[in-house]
């Protein structure tokens, strides 16, 4: 299949476009989506699909989320656009108490086939209410799938899977990576949930990460390689389900694990990865395991302050060396 080099935001635009052309029950609702969406991820959808399938909504997150659910219950497949992740707080009842529970509470009568798109992460000095990475919260929530891609191809393929899924899928667009370019196939094939992508192979150390911090991890891995430390770099791509087997196989080989997350370290998904690896392999086969993430403070506004909470390639290199010494 011949590919095309596109930005991540264009990749997810193409994925949603492909699925809306393929299936007339797929539609999108959210603020400003008829104008193409905040990032242009729905650019030109309105002329092609019309206002019934490209629904620009009031700033009413509760009903954006809940209406998506209601429409799914009568047989449509809504893409619920939250604009910026942080705004989902205004729709938590609809997401946590309704969407995530309805299939279970009703004994399987309902399949809430929705995709909830929540562009997350640090982005252009947007401060504490527009920069959060709370993806770990949702791994803790039974009933949903948690998707955290980092490349144009993965974002596109995983969005196709998300739209076709009967399970509710929480799709965390890595908004800081929207300009990132990469190859995307003309026909975007679905990528299964729960399969990690091996970014780079090495024997000394396993680096596990996901979402917007991946480019920093790759840079760090290149620096480490230049200093003679060869890292396996694994992009989990989805946090629930997640590819425990791939991570454990890698740590079995390297014996050393560093999980890198943009989110606050405390009680983040990195803790789950480290615990699982140690439980599955046993402490004797893990020489060192660490997490690197943000300190437990809100994301500040001022550029130097924001930089202070960011995970950078230099911090990753330093943490990796500490793991090697451990």
């Amino acid at each position, binding site marked *: 299949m011949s590919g095309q080099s596109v930005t991540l935001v264009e990749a997810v635009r193409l994925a949603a476009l492909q699925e809306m052309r393929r299936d007339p*029950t797929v*539609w999108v609702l959210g603020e400003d989506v008829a104008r193409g969406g905040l990032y242009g991820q729905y650019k030109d959808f309105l002329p092609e699909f019309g206002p*019934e*399938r490209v*629904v620009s*909504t*009031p700033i*009413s997150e*509760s*009903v954006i*989320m*809940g*209406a*998506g*659910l*209601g*429409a*799914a*219950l*009568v*047989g*449509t497949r*809504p893409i619920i656009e939250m604009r910026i992740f942080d705004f989902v707080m205004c729709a938590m*009842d*609809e997401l946590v*108490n*309704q969407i995530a529970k*309805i*299939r*279970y*509470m*009703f*004994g*399987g*009568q*309902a399949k809430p086939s929705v995709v909830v798109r929540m562009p997350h992460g640090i982005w252009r000095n947007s401060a504490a209410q527009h920069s959060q990475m709370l993806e770990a919260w949702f791994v803790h929530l*039974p*009933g*949903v*799938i948690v998707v955290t891609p980092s490349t144009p191809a993965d974002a596109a393929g995983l969005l196709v899977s998300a739209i076709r*899924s*009967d*399970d*509710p899928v929480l799709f965390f667009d890595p908004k800081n990576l929207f300009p990132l370019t990469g190859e995307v196939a003309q026909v975007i094939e679905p990528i299964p*949930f*729960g399969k990690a992508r091996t970014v780079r192979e090495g024997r000394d150390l396993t680096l596990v990460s996901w979402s917007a911090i991946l480019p920093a991890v790759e840079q760090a891995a290149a620096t480490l390689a230049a200093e003679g430390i060869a890292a396996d770099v694994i992009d989990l791509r989805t946090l*629930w*389900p997640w590819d425990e087997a791939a991570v454990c196989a890698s740590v079995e080989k390297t014996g050393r694990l560093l999980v890198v997350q943009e989110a606050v370290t405390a009680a983040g998904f990195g803790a789950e990865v480290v615990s699982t690896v140690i439980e599955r392999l046993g402490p004797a086969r893990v020489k060192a395991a660490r997490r690197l993430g943000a300190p437990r403070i809100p994301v500040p506004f001022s550029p130097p302050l924001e930089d202070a909470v960011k995970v950078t390639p230099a911090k990753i290199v330093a943490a990796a060396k500490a793991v090697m010494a451990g």
Partner: protein
Amino acid sequence: MQSTHNVQRLLDLFGTMCRIRAFETAALNAHKEGVVPGPLHVSIGQEGVATGVCLNLATEDRITSNHRGHGHAIAKGAGVQGMMRELFGRDGGHCRGKGGSMHIADFSVGMLGANGVVSGGIPIAVGAAQGLKMMRSSAIAVCFFGDGAINRGPFLEGLNWAALYQLPVLFICEDNGVSAFTATDTVTAGPGVMARAEALGVPGVSVDGNDVMAVDEAAARLVAEVRAGKGPRLLHARTFRITGHTSTDAAAWRDPASVEEAKTRDPIDRLAVVLAERGIAAADLDAVRKAAREEMDAAVADAKAAPWPQEAIAYEDVQDVGAVAYSGVSA
């Protein structure tokens, strides 16, 4: 009460109200007996609203309900055996024992679920209406909520949305005057639900919810308007919750006189008077009540005898991908 209704219609309304009353009375007794676990919110005294609305709906019409939803489910046609088993947490319940009283649902008759969160059904009904409209269905969505719900955000968001997109949804504000343990008028500013709906562009009608004929007439007109594509409508039905908030709430804070006065406006007894005036023998009406009691007593007996769900069922219906496997927890 006017009686422009034909006698058969009145008997249908009477029969449904009696079945709801009998179901909830039987469930309440079973709860007192200790065989129904968890909280139980009954709607004794409010049966006129569920009945008068739902008898104007087709099976393919969808309803969303609230925590006090037994009446809505029965009036919409849900099977009472599956409902009673669900209340008992037994095998064969509509929700496989995973919902209970607060989460009764029967999608096969368009009952999209009771809800444990006040106003939780509003966004869902609005979305169901949007989906139905998108698919060119003739079905409509009907949303039951209480007077307490008008003080939550989804009420504002949902009515605005429904009016904005001219959705086929009928909102039913079942106004029993109490928000859990607190009189709603003591916690509600302004003139209330009708004014709020009007301000959001949703035309409404206010009726005595304990006059099932008035509810029926108003619902028939509003359902027809909604089905004709005229946009959302609201029915405000004033009623009275004779029992407490839950099965364990004696509602002792209420003036007993108000409860006694409300009992004189009981929707079932009032319709019985009309039916008597229309020539139906008291014995025939008693037979309807008795048949309802027997049906629900049989449902209780069935539920009591039903087995508990297998433990593995707890692990089912979570999600297709990423579900955790049952590995014999108690084994």
